[in-house]
């Protein structure tokens, strides 16, 4: 359904994202994992044309047989909502503070469907119920500041699925929420996407979350897709140094996970920090934080290798059974 090839996102002179290939099949759920500053959000936003104004996109993003890169803004805008839904990150800022909630949901319907006022009203109530907001009618006239963060996020989800898009992009939908609320929202997203047969691109910095939601996981660092495979493969048999470091540092992975038992490790911290824009080293972008970097890593960016659907970009991958 969605095919990304040679996607490049540049801001000024810097290349923020450089992804050679990424696919999302119809109805499949794909996760993008990486720390803050890894470029995962920009990648997700670029698919729908929601990237920051200063960012320049090149390459190819094909949705079915239509090329999204270079598409006229009005056409791309028409696809948003109708074909591609987007759930933003921080619900407290993503809603217009001076417009009532009901009207903001109705906007999604009016822009993408031919329903008349009465039908819009009915469908809005339906959507509120679908996202499990009790006493749906009371939300219609409320303003965003009058409802909680979790409720705001549900409203945003309702707006994203309102017109029945085939692809749902969720950009860290639970990061800004209380821990207690996060699970419910995650469950909601999974249920809705399954029920409507929507493809899902789920972006997060929490590996455990992505693992529980998605069928396939792509690991992003420095704007590069360094590893890609099925969720199971990625978490139990990580091959990129960064991926295994992420797993080591992930508190959410259940204790019972075979990998955690096998490694018998406590949580660890990945040394160093994600460099700011323009601060990545030449060659492999991860090399300054990697325990196994070599001369080759400094001079050549790693080339992709593919082992049965498990793709990798690393000169010195973790061998099976190895400690990171």
């Amino acid at each position, binding site marked *: 359904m969605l095919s990304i090839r040679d996607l490049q996102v540049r801001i000024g002179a810097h290349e923020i994202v450089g992804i050679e290939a990424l696919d999302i099949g119809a109805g499949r759920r794909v996760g993008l994992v990486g720390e803050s500053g890894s470029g995962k959000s920009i990648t997700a*936003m670029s698919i*729908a*044309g*929601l990237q920051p*104004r200063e960012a320049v996109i090149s390459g190819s993003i094909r949705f079915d047989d239509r090329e999204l890169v270079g598409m006229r*803004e*009005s056409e791309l*805008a*028409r696809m*948003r*909502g*109708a074909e591609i*839904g*987007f759930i*933003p990150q*921080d619900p407290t*800022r*993503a*809603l*217009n*503070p*001076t*417009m009532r909630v009901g009207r903001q949901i109705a*906007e*999604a319907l009016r*822009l*993408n469907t031919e329903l008349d006022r009465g039908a819009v009203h009915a469908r809005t109530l339906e959507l509120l119920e679908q996202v499990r907001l009790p006493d749906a009618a009371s939300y219609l006239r409320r*303003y965003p*500041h*009058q409802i909680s963060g979790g409720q705001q996020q549900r409203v*945003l989800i309702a*707006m*994203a699925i*309102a*017109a029945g898009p085939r692809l749902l992009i969720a950009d860290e939908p639970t990061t800004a929420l209380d821990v207690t609320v996060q699970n419910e929202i995650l469950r909601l997203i999974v249920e809705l996407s399954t029920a409507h047969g929507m493809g899902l691109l789920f972006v997060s910095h929490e590996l455990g979350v992505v693992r529980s939601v998605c069928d396939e996981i792509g690991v992003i660092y420095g704007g590069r897709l360094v590893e890609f495979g099925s969720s199971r493969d990625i978490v139990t048999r990580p091959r990129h140094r960064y991926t295994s470091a992420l797993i080591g540092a992930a508190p959410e992975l259940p204790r019972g996970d075979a990998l955690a038992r096998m490694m018998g490790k406590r949580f660890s911290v990945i040394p160093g920090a994600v460099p700011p824009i323009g601060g990545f080293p030449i060659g492999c972008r991860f090399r300054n934080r990697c325990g196994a970097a070599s001369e080759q890593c400094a001079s050549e960016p790693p080339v992709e290798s593919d082992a049965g659907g498990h793709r990798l970009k690393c000169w010195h991958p973790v061998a099976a059974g190895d400690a990171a």
Partner: protein
Amino acid sequence: MNLRILTLIGREAITLIASALIGSLVVFGLLRLLGGDVALMILGQDADPDAAIALREQLGLNRPLHVQYLDWIGGFLTGDLGKAYSGGYDIFDQIVARMGPTSLLAFGSLLVSILLALAVGTYSALNARRASGAVIDVLSQLAIAMPSFWAALLLVYLFAVILGWLPAGGYVPLTEDPAGSLRSLVLPVAALSLSSAAVKTRFVRSAMLDIMNEDYIRTAMAKGRTFGGAVLRHGLRNAAIPVVTISTLQLGQLLAGAIVLENVFVIPGLGRLLLVAVNGREVIVVQSLTFVILMIILAMNFLMDIAYGLLDPRIADKKAAAAHG
């Protein structure tokens, strides 16, 4: 509508009435404090003492002050403020007759300056390339420094004397001839809006630039709008809020400008009568007119504050919380 709006209106109404009362007391007192004897002010300091005595009787100036004050205020309600000393006209009638032109000029300018500011400010924010931003800044500075009466004269010269498209002055009542009325108001409204529009434009531009970076613009785009569409539909309304705030602060200036320009364009409004009265030392007329103009400002403030409460629901809630807290 709902309780929130009703409490807002109620609170603003109380402020309105309190300010009006205090204002009337100040006007009443200031004239007498600075000028001394009212009869001598009207007749001139070296007037014939007998004439002064007669005038005091006629105007009831020998009564206790609070009686005079109450009588005057009451006159607004009964419709009788007396007659001008030398002009002989009925004060109340004149005030009523002149409300129309002044309101038209003032409200017209307010509307035009807001619309102009929203248009130019939004355009300049959406096209925020260096050049257009700097140009707008320079033009704004010039517009702010330019006296409105000079701008008026320049406009008159260009459009009335040279081009002959618009009249150099005068006024046609709206009910008589709407088209002619609007024609006679174009230049005065333009001159009056210029400076305040420049100030508002900067606010709109700055607000729009902020809004363009807001997350809810992206959400609107995600629903199916283009960037421009999202900014117009969601941003404009939020940019209107600082505009309303600024407009409220500029009300005094607006009325002041209206007073001056009524005299430049010979528009038969309150400002024109006020100047004539000042020159003719008609103390009672000045007193009443000043109060009326003050009331216009207070009333416009009242409307603005309500508009503000309607536009931004957070403000009304905050105010309510503060009042109960």
